[in-house]
């Protein structure tokens, strides 16, 4: 399995990662070698094997649908890059 520059650029876009044009080839090379390692999985036939998602196969716990957290907006927004009037600021999205 080998990835080309166009595929790497597409994956980077899906992952919302800016990758410099100069670095695309080295990412393509490294990602391809990782996928080659991963391809060793194909050596074993797993037909009919149930996938394992949780090592102890425990079910997720449920809790009553009640408010359990206090409002800590001030503390959380104190570390935000840009806030105003209790809102997080980002570049304008809608004209």
């Amino acid at each position, binding site marked *: 399995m080998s*990835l080309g520059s166009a595929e*790497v650029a597409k*994956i*980077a*876009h*899906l*992952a*919302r*990662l*800016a*990758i*410099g044009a100069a670095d695309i080839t080295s*990412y393509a090379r*490294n*990602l391809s*070698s*990782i*996928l*080659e*390692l*991963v*391809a*060793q*999985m*194909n*050596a*074993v036939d*797993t037909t009919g*094997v*149930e*996938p*394992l*998602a*949780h*090592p*102890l196969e*425990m079910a*997720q*716990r449920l*809790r009553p649908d009640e408010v359990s957290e206090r409002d*800590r907006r001030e*503390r*959380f927004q*104190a*570390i*935000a*890059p*840009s806030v105003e009037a209790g809102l*997080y600021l*980002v*570049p*304008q*999205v809608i004209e």
Partner: protein
Amino acid sequence: MHTKTIAELAAGLRAGEFSSEELTRALLDRIGRLDPQLNAFITVTTEPALAQARAADRRRAAGESGALTGVPIAHKDIFCTLGVRTSCGSRILDNFIAPYDATVVEKCQAAGLVMLGKTNMDEFAMGSSTETSYYGPTRNPWDLNAVPGGSSGGSAAAVAARLVPGATGTDTGGSIRQPASLCGVTGLKPTYGRVSRWGMIAYASSLDQGGAFGRTAEDVALLLQVMAGFDPRDSTSADQPVPDYGATLNDPLEGLKIGLPREYFGEGLDPQVAGVIEESLAGYRRLGAELVEISLPNAGLAIPSYYVIAPAECSSNLARFDGVRYGYRCENPRDLLDLYTRSRGEGFGAEVKRRIMIGTYALSAGYYDAYYLKAQQIRRLISQDFRAALAQVDVIMGPTSPTVAFNLGEKVDDPVTMYLSDIYTIAVNLAGLPGMSIPVGFADGRPVGLQSIGNYFAEAKLLNVAHRYQQVSDWHRRLPPVD
């Protein structure tokens, strides 16, 4: 004071031989003197540490102290610490002052442990050498040209260099056991769910597990006693009673059945490391254990399946770092997409970006069955191998890592070669079992670790097995040449 173990320091504090403040000052001085060459710490919390130490001394004077009140430790910089920078070794969190404490940090504080600082690590715990840290690599106290292992390399190096008697770590594919091995200290990765993940920055949530480093198994038992337990705030926390880990440390090993997987002693294992491991196993035979050859037939598939599952989970977990609510934001974003992509592109290092991209690819439309589903099926086969083996034997043993510590820069540009450093540790995370590494000798002047793997929630057994060996050996008392 710095050469004493946690158990000895606790006894000294109890007997009034020294105060926590004196002890804390002595270790902070040592960190100030030696850490510039090791770089084991990202942040040293001098003032809060002294305040915690004085509070511990007051608690003792008031007769309110517990077993470990006033003993200093360090936390891996992956655990959130209220009011203290929690960087996870990344530029993207370089300015992140955590607004809350992780459960592990809270429990340590409640026990009266004094936090001296936050230790260095591979960025977001992705690495086996601590070289991917935004804060520069940590160096191995046994040889400053060697890596300490990773990702919890700062914690392992700090304990090895006697900067702290114990430290926390996390282990997703070997990140406690492998650096413990490479630095010649004792490290335990508990069963998945034994230690709360709340406030521990997530890498791969179905594999991540917090644990501890110490010089001895007895010290690790003391730390695990504080850290372990059910936490309703972590949805995968195990609701299981926590045994008294100290109570069984001295149980005899007569009749203990140790399984040696033939796959852990084959091609790829350094012959000198193999020799040291053989000698330590002979030591176990003298302690009354019986050695049995076993097989883990799918061991070779652990790394390939891990490098699908862990990246897939990380691509999802690390989506939260978007430059909007906290952490690094790029300069002058043109629009929202530019803000996301440049904040992430500039904030994450190369290895983190590689793993996010592998995970994004594996989970993208059309590839899910070939990668993620296949990897989870192999995960079941690996888990079944361990269940079958642990039905025959009490513990499984082998080398923690195929080589001793490698040199700085040796593998950092070749990710796949770096991944092979965790060839014996990764399967344990896939199965969710507890694993431990203890120092058992040296090859080329660099430490060798013996890994032991136990059944689910059998941490007490692993600690017992390690402790008995440390009663008849002195590898864990050897001092590295830094001073």
